[in-house]
Structure formats: C-alpha cells, structure tokens
C-alpha cells in the first residue's frame, strides 16, 4: 500500500480488509452496548488503571473494532473491574460486563503465564 509522507515513524494506517472482525461481531452480539459507546471519554478520565497501563474502555473498543487486539489486551491487563466507568457512563453502558465478555470472547495467547 502506498503511504503518503515520510517514513520516520511506522505507519498507523490499518487495512480493514485484513482485519478479522469475527470476534468483534460476536462481542456485539453478546454485548449490544459495545456499539452504543459515543467515545465521550468519561471512562478514560475516571479509570484508576489508566495510570498504569493507559487503560480506557473507550480505546479498547476502538482497538478491537480495528483489529488491534494486542494493544487492547495490554491495556486491559490492568483493569481492576472497580466499576467507576460504569458509574460515569452517560450512555448507561454496563462496562464491567462488557470487559468480562471481552475477557471471555477474545483470547490473549501472549499474556498467559
């Protein structure tokens, strides 16, 4: 693929044709709320785990949608399930259950001990 510009940093372009969306679609089936997120960032602002792994359920959803699963898992590894994101979500998304569903549907092969 031709990428416009200089090649100082690696390209962040994503080829959506190569992204396997099967798992994300499964997630959406189990958690219809996954697509209701309007990316306001309230969850990112309150998350206590963001200080350690940059966790933000908003970003996780975006990354999973774009097939950047590894980055999403790295963030999720520090989620403490404290529920602050659920409390502040203006869309009323049950983020805790969403996170648990992600943990069940996706498979983090590298993160396993």
């Amino acid at each position, binding site marked *: 693929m031709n990428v416009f510009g200089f090649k100082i940093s690696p390209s962040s372009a994503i080829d959506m044709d190569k992204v396997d969306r099967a798992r994300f679609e499964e997630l959406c089936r189990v958690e219809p*709320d996954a697509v209701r997120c309007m990316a306001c960032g309230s969850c990112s602002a*309150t998350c*206590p785990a963001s*200080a*350690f*792994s940059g966790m933000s359920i908003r970003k996780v959803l975006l990354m999973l949608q774009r097939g950047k699963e590894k980055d999403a*898992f790295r963030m*999720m*590894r*520090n*989620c*403490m*399930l*404290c*529920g*602050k994101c*659920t*409390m*502040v*979500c203006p869309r*009323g*998304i*049950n983020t*805790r*259950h969403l996170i*648990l569903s*992600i*943990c*069940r*549907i*996706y*498979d*983090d092969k590298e*993160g*396993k*001990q």
Partner: protein
Amino acid sequence: MREIYLSGYNNFVLPFMLGMLFVLTWCIVGAVRIILQLPHQDRKAFFLSLVNPKIMARNIRDWFCDCLFHVKLWKRNKMLGYMHSSIAFGWFMIIVIGHIEVFLYTPERVHQIWYPIFFRYFVAVTDSTMKGSFFFFLMDFFLLMILSGIILAIIKRVRSRMFGMRRTTRASITDLIGLYSLWSIFPLRLLAEGFTADISGGSFLTKSLNWVLHSFLSDQMNMLPTWWAYSIALGVFMCILPFSRYMHIPAEILLIPLRNAGIHVSHARKGFAKLQVYSCPGCGVCIDACPMGTVKSNIKDTTVYLNRQIKRYNEKRIEEISDKCLLCGKCTAVCPVGVEGDKMRIAQRSIRKYNISPDYSNIDINQGNLSKNIFVSTSNNVVSKNKNERVIYFAGCMTALTPSISKSMTQILEKCGIDYSFMDKDGGICCGRPMWMAGRFDQAKQMIEKNTEIITKSGADILLLSCPICYKIFKERYRLEGIEILHHTEYIERLVKEGILTLEKSGSSYVFHDPCELGRGCGIYDQPRKVISGLGNLVEASQNGKESICCGGSLGSLTLGFDKRKTMTENALHNLTIADPDVIVTACPLCRSTFNRYSDRPVKDIAEIVEEQYRKRVNI
C-alpha cells in the same frame, strides 16, 4: 399391650420399608460424599468440632431451634412459624413417642423398624396403658398438632399473605408430589388408627373417630386398606424426598454442625455448597426479601430458584441468576436455614473460564505517588495530640466519584488534629472487592497484596475507609498486622466518644440507610445511628438494619443495566422516606450517588453532615 400377630409383620409395611431404605441409603451416601468433598482442613475442623462440647451444645441447640421449632420463622411471622414447627416438631414427637411405646410395651420388636410406625395395627390394648391416658393421649395430641399445621399449609397455598408472605415459590412437579403425599400421610394415619382404635386403644382423637366410623361402617375389613394407604403415602413421600425440596429435612441436620464448625463455601458445586443447595427448603422467604423483586421478571432469579437450577445442572440459568444478583446479602440474612445466597453466587462466578486474565505485576508501588504517605497534622487540638496515632485514609474508587465525602472526611480529620495521610488522593489501586465479587479471586488477591504492601510500608496505626465495599474486603481478606481497620462511621463515633469531636443537635430529622456491605456485610448498625442521634432527630425506615433494602446501585450485579435498576432505587427510597425525614443519610459513596439520582430530598454521607454541622457552628 398384647400382640395380635405372631410375626409382627404384614405386607402393607413394604411401601414404607422400601421408601425408608431408599431414603436412608441416599442420605448416608450423600453425607459421606459431601464430607469427602470438603477440603482437607475443613474436614479436620468438622471432625474436631464433633468432640468439642461447646460446639456440640450449639449443634444440639440449633437442631432443636432450627429444624424442629423453626424459631427464625416464628420471629418472622407467628402463623408461618406455627405451621412449620407444628408439622416438624409434631412429627418428631410422634416418632419419638412411637419408639418409646414399642420399647415399653413390646421390647422384643425393637429391631423391626416398621413396628413403631404401625404400632396400633399390631397390638391390642390391655390395662398397661392406663386406659391410654398418657402415651396415647400424647400421640393424639401431636397428631392433632400436625393436622392443624397441614390445614394452615393448605390455606397458605391460596392465601400466603396471611402468613406474611407476598410471594411464594412456584412448586416444581416433584415438590408437588412430595407436598401432596406429605399432606395425605397424617389424615391417613388418623383414619387408620381410627379404624383400629377399638382394638388397639386410642385417645380423644382416634377413639372418637372410631365411634363415628363404627356408627356407619361396621366392617372390620376397612382397616387394612387404610393402613395400606398410610404406608403408601409414607413410601411415596420418602421415595420423592431426595428429588424434591423436602431433601432439606435430612440435609439441614448435616448443615448445622458443618456451619458451626466454621466451614465456608469453597467450591461452587461440591461439599458445603452442595449441602447448602440441598438444605434449601424452597420456602420462598428470600423472594419477598430480594430487592430485585420490584421487577416481576426478576423473581425467578432469587436464591430459591438458583438452588433449584443448581440441582438440575441448568448451566445457562445458573449463570444468568448468579450474574444478575446485586449481592446485597438480604436473602442470606432472612434465610431460616442459613443458605448463603451471595456467597453461593460468587462461587458460581468463580468457576467461569476467561481467556484474558488481568495481571498487576507491572504496577510498581514505589513509583509516582502510590506509596508516598506523609502524615500531616494541622490543628493544635491537645486531646488528639496526646493520642499519637497515625491514620492512613483510603477513600476508595467510589469515593473518588463523590469527592464531597473524602473532602468532608479530611476536613474532620484536620479539625480534630489527627495525623493522617490521604493514601489514594491521586488515584490508587482498587481494594479488590469488585473483582472478588466477579469471582476472579486470583486477580483480587494480587490487588490485595499490592495494597497491603503500601499500607504496611506507611507505618500507620489505623486504616480509615470511606467505602463499605472496601471495608468488607479489608476486614475479611487483608492481613494487616497491628493496623486497626475502621470505617469512617466507626471512627467518627470513636472521636465523639473520646470528646475530640463534639456534636450539636439541630432540628432536622434524619433517616439512616444501612449500606449492604456495612450492615449485613460487616455488622455495623449502631455506630452511625449513635452519631446521627447526636446531630438531630433520627427516624427509622420501615425496613432497616439487617433487612435494609439495597439501593440498587450495587457493583455485585454484573448484568443488570443502568436502566433496570431504577425501580429498585425508587422502591428503596420509598422504604426510607416512610417517616418523612428531611435528609437521607448513608455511609456508602455508591448508595449516596445512586439515591441522589432519584431522591426528592437531599442524600448525604454521614461524614458530610458531621462536617457541615461543625462548619456551621464554627462560622456562627
């Protein structure tokens, strides 16, 4: 007494004997399996408890009070208590007296186990019974007691409100077979003994029935069919018992000593958990107690149905039920048997498989502000200066969303001149309780380790918490040697008692909402009430203390969405505002923000009202 039949046997005892052997085998095999499934140290604790006279005395008291007299149901509702205890105690006494009769009058028949049950068929009355004035009278008296209980049970099927129950359990098919056979046992016994009362003797009930029966049924041949029917009813009941809710009768006998030995649920399905499932009598007291009951579709998600689905191995429903629960623990608090609905659900969650497991080993507690605890004291308060105790204040995640609580609390600490450090002022690590409630124990333990390290390193004497959710796990799972763990309600009450903090009565009226984790979870009911009564007029909600209603915001529920909780919160608010208080006071940041959303009057944390009142006084 004189025996009529040389063999002491008739074919009609067969159905009873069959049922008896079946149920005995089932129970013995089950009990052995459950004891074998217990973890090694639990099994050891159980056997040791059996030789401990103190625990044994408690076992005997509980067997009588819970299994026979149903004391907890008496406390709930007199009619309900009488109904259950009349059947249980009456039946027990009939069995006991039946055995005494055999032992006294026909001691050579003791080894025939059907003999005490069908005693009156096999014997003829002689002078030795004092005309039936003692044992026969007692037998008839207890039979009458059981019959009255059964009449009440029949009434309860249609008018449960008379027994203080709005909703009752929907009986399954095996429950119904058990129920009808149980109901028929005693009228059939009365009939059978009525037919034979002129030969075997009887008392006020059986003798009178005998006269009535003989006035129009002179044929002695009616006798045998009624004894057959009685025996068949017993046999059917005992054969269906292991598959119906009546399994609680034998299961509870084992549950009591295991509980008194201090054994807890350690596996979702095996050992103690299995025993709890079988001990559930399906009475349905938990249905009315459940805060989710405000939405009718949630009724099938109460503890009694969880136990039923676990018995049926219906994994899909088990997951639904255990994930939906708010874990408020009210079903556990009201359960007459002691089934721990909340712990059972956490155990069900814990056996779930996840492919991604959080891991906190990358968190370095020495980095950033995580463990920079510097104790500061700002006031010149002489009393507290002498105390020389250092308080580490952990507000918790939920308090971070209601900063007015932590602000008030730090203000109080400053005004009292306490040496304190605000541990998670700039964010910290979660206490682990939400993770624990989701059943992911290993992850929760990692967080516990991190926090323990930070707290022990700080050199504090007291760990002060504002959130009951944190408080519960700190009390239960943290090992903080030499550090006292206090919730801020306790700490404020202590400051008042020691004279460091003074309260002044105002004209406002307050109602206190007992947060689930603080009240039922940790048993703190009096301290907040003492503080509030020092501030103003304390009124009570219609259901409070152990039976307080969950605000609906609980982190315990994994699946309940935001919109589905509204009716629960409104119901809890209605319960709180019965006495029309000016302010709703609570001691949990989560309850506070949940109530605040729908309340028509101010909702405050106990720290806020104490601080507010203090500030007003200083300004004047």
